[in-house]
């Protein structure tokens, strides 16, 4: 894994009422790193394909268990929506809130909650990752404007 400054990890275990990730298989490494403020993705050594969510095979060439790299944790809003209806239990006090498809600088996209004024969000807006620890096992990536 390449070295980059870990992102802040805020402990929200007491206040979080939303779903929590259940680490298993290829995801275990990913979620373990989140507790340390690291956002991982997989980058295949054979063909260079970058991917997220973690999988046991490379989607470019089929190589098994492509290794993890640490993302710089920066990217832009590829698209977004502002939810006025809560999509999950534990989100009803949060509406309206913005969720984005974040295009990471390294290539892969991931969905993430944005921690900012939802009306200020626009496509292309630069973002950086922070983490909210929501269980003993995982901290979810939450992006803020950069």
């Amino acid at each position, binding site marked *: 894994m390449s070295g980059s400054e870990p992102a802040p990890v805020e402990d929200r275990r007491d206040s979080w009422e*939303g*779903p*929590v*990730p*259940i*680490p*298993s*298989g*290829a*995801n275990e490494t990913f*979620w373990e790193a989140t507790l340390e403020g690291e956002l991982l993705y997989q980058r295949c050594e054979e063909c260079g394909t970058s991917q*997220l*969510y*973690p*999988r046991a095979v490379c989607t470019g060439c089929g190589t098994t268990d492509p290794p993890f790299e640490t993302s710089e944790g920066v990217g832009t809003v*590829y*698209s*977004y*929506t*502002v*939810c*006025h*209806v*809560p*999509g*999950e239990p*534990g*989100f009803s006090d*949060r509406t*309206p*809130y913005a*969720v*984005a*498809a974040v295009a990471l600088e390294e290539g892969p*996209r*991931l*969905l*993430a*909650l944005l921690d900012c004024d939802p009306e200020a969000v626009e*496509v*292309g807006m630069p973002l950086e990752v922070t983490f909210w620890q*929501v269980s003993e096992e*995982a901290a*979810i990536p939450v992006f803020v404007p950069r």
Partner: protein
Amino acid sequence: MAEPIVAGVAESDLGETPDRNWLDNAGIATVRALEDAGLALEDVDGVAVAGGNDYMPALVLSEYLDLEEPSVLEGTEIGGSSFESFCGHIGDAMARGRADVVVIAYGSTRKTGPGRDQSLEITHPVDGFVRPTGLFRPPGAYAMAAQRHMHEYGTTEEQLAEIAVSTREWASMNPKAAHQDSISVDDVLESRQIAEPFNLLDCCLVSDGGGAVVLASEEKARELGVPEIAVSGVASTSTHRQDISEMPDMTTTGAAVTGPKAFEQAGITPDDVDVAQLYDSFTYTALVTLEDLGFCEKGEGGSFVEGGTTAPGGELPMNTQGGGLSYCHPGHFGVFVLIEAVRQLRGDYTGDRQVDGAEVAVAHGTGGILSSSSTVVLRREA
């Protein structure tokens, strides 16, 4: 090659069916569609079922209908486009002489049934990445795709609303439609915000109900003497599962692939299409599908739908039963686009509801979250 003929179509009761389960609705739709074709249960060689609350739906429906030695059992689940996809698979089976009568069926109690909030999502590893974002699915995911389209092409909320308005005009002529009162663009824009840019009237309704389509071999159809509505082209594909972050390009769906293939197979171009039944889970779903099927240039869907292009009397009549936005939407809407396409080609309606001289129809299903696409070209044989 021989083309399968749609010999009969029908819905079950729509709206709220609290005393029925999904299987009842699929079964009722099946027997009604068989009756429409002049056939009986004993004539059925097989079933193709998707969307039931069961992981072996073809077996369940075969047992429920007490089919004897069915030779075609299809249950490939690709969401709301499954039924269009079935048309291809069944056509292949018929071409090999394996069946003469196969029923495509769907039933649901999405609105009143138990377990409607249940989801298989928890079994998929990506869920740990999606659910903690709180994204309201499916609307929020489609909304994200619409937002990207607005960013790239300048599509406006007013243009999306035009689709809801035109669709409602069709619904106002359909006694079976859940919502028949007319609406304006402002009504859409002023309805409750759901997931930006969608308001409530950009979103499909939720209902119970079922539908069925009877496919017959050419030989069998001739015996029956039904109007010959031929399945002339079919193509299916997918771009991702249900995770909108994985959709390669949120402004282009699989319809860009399946449209040209199905049209080529049928020997037509978009200009030849008299009536379009395009899955409309949301206003954006129909808008992007119009573009991807080639009814207008990429990015011009917004201006294309302005001024009632898809409304009664418009250049391209679309979703003439009122669509998922106004007629019914029990979860997998794909079976209903086939049903309406057939009825228009048969000339079942009177007055403004009937598209004059409709000979070629396209029925397009979309499944998952813009994930799968299946296009069927139907043609009325002279």
